[in-house]
């Protein structure tokens, strides 16, 4: 094709796009993505490959390798592959053996883990139960000062009676201990190496037991990892994994379409057609292990009034949000428990849209047009600002005096810390344990990060369910808590979206709902000719 022709074509395409967002970089993403029309792409490439290297592009770079010093999703995509946990949560959402081959609860508070034999650290040292004990204790050691010191507060003490056995005593019955061990904080680090090298050296040159070994890292450019040939779970299907940081959406997609990278993370729903329309690429998604909610400051009138909050929920047309803003890539929640979690009640219908009833409840609740503010960031969670504007319109339709205010990301973090939100704000609680305790109760419990509303019965049940090993009792407790929740709406749940990835068609890989990027043998295969 002559240069002039496609120049004109692309220019016309680019010019036709209306850049509506004020932000320069967001504008760039929209513009570029829109101009990457499916018809305009490079010809189809083979759907098999001879590559021995997997290149992954994510939206931001990692910051640290020491897994006990970060909980950010960019970091855990790497740390869960450099390191292993005793228990491993697979993309199917279930717990599987990791560095522990089996575990058992004795009585109410004593858990015994059988530690996998014959596992070696990347430097060749043998892994033992003593490493696991030291590693877990390191998370709360004030001298180390990790960023995950609150993950294992239910543990009383740990013993490693022999190299193959680990005994964990909890302060009270903790049904979720294996789940806690499967997420952040639970990555096992090498005692001998860390003690010898020190925390800084360990962070710079991490050693784990995971399927990949650290090779090199150039900040904001590329991280190179190589396959661990002796991995206990089997050597992975590629020799190297390269992680690149491509912050802008449009170039990230362009690099996938051009075949420079094999996998991209954070694929926005409105760009999926571009990836699916290309002959050599595809989209894989997982229903996010969590919800996108408008959290409510229930201490501020009129948001202390349950009828007003019920009206807020009834006035949101969630189906329209899923269809229009998410292109169908999400589901309407039915309460505070994410689909896929323990005790999710499949019989409970999705949250209802009924503007007539919303008006009625506002009237009954004595709402007098007080201003209700949604504080939103732009892009902290996907679609946060567009959803805020849509909801503002829906609320105004039923007579709610709604206002949208935009916050910068770090101001939001500050307000979150100070608990100083004016009304409602976006939160994307991750279900860290695959259980309501790791989401609703973690955030909404007394003293929790979103403690803006209290209800004695809700508190009593949440506390009892946390420390009960009787699943029947827990199921009943969460059912009753959901009922109370749906009367008081400490959160107004809006959507449970899909987390989508763009892949070359030769990459066979299943995303994990909790943003871990699992590249173990059971989950990654490159289709070869």
């Amino acid at each position, binding site marked *: 094709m002559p240069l002039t022709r496609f120049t004109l074509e692309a220019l016309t395409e680019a010019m036709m796009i209306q850049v509506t967002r004020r932000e320069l970089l967001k504008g760039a993403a929209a513009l570029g993505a829109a101009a*990457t029309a499916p018809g305009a792409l490079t010809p189809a490439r083979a759907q098999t490959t001879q590559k021995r290297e997997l290149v992954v592009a994510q939206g931001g770079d990692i910051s640290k390798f020491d897994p006990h010093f970060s909980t950010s999703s960019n970091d855990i995509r790497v740390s869960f592959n450099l390191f292993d946990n005793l228990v491993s949560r697979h993309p199917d959402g279930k717990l599987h053996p990791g560095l522990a081959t089996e575990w058992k609860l004795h009585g109410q508070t004593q858990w015994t883990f059988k530690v996998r034999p014959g596992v070696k650290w990347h430097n060749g040292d043998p892994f033992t139960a003593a490493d696991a004990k030291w590693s877990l204790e390191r998370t709360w050691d004030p001298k180390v000062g990790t960023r995950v010191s609150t993950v294992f507060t239910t543990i009383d003490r740990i013993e490693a009676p022999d190299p193959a056995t680990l005994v964990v005593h909890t302060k009270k019955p903790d049904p979720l201990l294996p789940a806690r061990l499967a997420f952040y904080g639970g990555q096992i680090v090498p005692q001998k190496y860390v003690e010898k090298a020190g925390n800084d050296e360990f962070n710079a040159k991490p050693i784990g037991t995971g399927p990949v070994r650290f090779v090199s890292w150039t900040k904001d450019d590329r991280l190179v990892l190589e396959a661990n040939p002796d991995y206990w779970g089997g050597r992975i299907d590629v020799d190297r994994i390269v992680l690149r940081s491509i912050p802008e959406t449009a170039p990230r997609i362009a*690099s996938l379409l051009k075949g420079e990278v094999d996998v991209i993370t954070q694929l926005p729903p409105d760009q999926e057609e571009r990836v699916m329309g290309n002959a050599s690429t595809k989209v894989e998604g997982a229903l996010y292990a969590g919800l996108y909610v408008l959290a409510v400051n229930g201490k501020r009138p009129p948001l202390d009034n349950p009828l007003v909050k019920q009206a807020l929920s009834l006035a949101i047309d969630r189906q329209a949000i899923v269809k229009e803003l998410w292109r169908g890539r999400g589901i309407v929640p039915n309460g505070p428990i994410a689909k896929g979690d323990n005790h999710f009640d499949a019989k409970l219908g999705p949250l209802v849209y009924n503007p007539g009833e919303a008006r009625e409840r506002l009237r009954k609740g004595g709402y007098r047009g007080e201003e209700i503010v949604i504080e939103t960031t732009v892009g902290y969670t996907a679609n946060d600002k567009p959803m805020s504007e849509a909801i503002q319109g829906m609320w105004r339709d039923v007579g709610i005096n709604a206002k949208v205010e935009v916050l910068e990301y770090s101001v939001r973090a*500050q307000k979150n810390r100070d608990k100083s939100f004016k009304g409602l704000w976006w939160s994307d609680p991750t279900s860290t344990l695959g259980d309501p305790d790791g989401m609703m109760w973690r955030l909404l419990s007394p003293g929790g990060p979103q403690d803006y509303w209290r209800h004695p019965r809700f508190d009593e049940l949440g506390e009892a369910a946390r420390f009960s090993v009787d699943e029947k009792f827990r199921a009943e407790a969460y059912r009753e808590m959901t009922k109370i929740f749906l009367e008081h709406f400490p959160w107004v749940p809006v959507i449970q979206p899909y987390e989508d990835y763009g892949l070359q068609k030769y990459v066979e890989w299943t995303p994990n709902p909790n943003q871990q990027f699992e590249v173990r043998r059971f989950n990654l295969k490159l289709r070869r000719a």
Partner: protein
Amino acid sequence: MRGVFRFLAPRLLRALIAVWLVSTVVFVVMRLSGDPVPLLLPPDAPRSEIFRVRRELGLDRPLPAQYGVFLANALRGDFGRSIHFREPAFAVVRGYLGATVELGLTAFLLAAIVAVPVGLLSAVKRNSPIDHVAMGMALVGQSAPTFFLGILGILLLALKADLFPTGGRGDWTHLALPALTLGAFAMASIARVTRSAVLEVLRADYIRTARAKGVAEWLVVVKHTLKNAALPIVTITGLQFGTLLGGAVVTETVFAWPGIGRLAIQSIYNRDYPVVQCAVFLSAIVFIMINFAIDLLYGVLDPRARR
């Protein structure tokens, strides 16, 4: 000798005051902008944990004390440890310096090598089609936002024509697109300033005299005109150089180029005070050094400036 000292001393003093002012302003503004600790810890971390980390980072001390420590350490070249990376801030910034210099210098050379002859030609051939085309393109270069040029470059030259990679740092092919994108604005500015500076000189009496006494036209342009038009060209070129080194945030973001601009922006979002302070400090020094070099060059180019 005394003349040189009298020329240099006030300029050096001004440069030092500027560096001190810039670093103080950055120090104060960063502290006013908020607390980095909420960004470091998981959202459910208790208050005691926040206080512990604040203490660990020295953020619990009064602002003047923090400033004193900052200044004393900065003088020794120690900018503290990055809160985000847990490494010395200077080492972090130094890691990005190579990429920034590589991109900035290429963009600058590209801009200067293209822009000065184009501006000169435009002026000499004033109102000709060459002038119209060149100045039209300069207008586009100056008015098109960098992200637009960058994304367009990726779509056309990387994705469709398959000439260059879409981004990242590597060999010269990785450098071409970002350097062109980044250099576009500078190129346009330098070309326009060159054109108007040359035009002004071409109207001067000594040029008329030179032509009248029969000096060849190319000699009139190169020797008599360009030398006398050099001051504004040197000024704009120098200033653009500083901007290219420090102001490449958008280009670096669009092309996933691991440079200091991107680092600085991310560090501002992360409230990583030490890295921001170090990056701004180094950028300020580069800018001031360039200004200083331009000042010196003025002295060489125009003897009147030495007085």
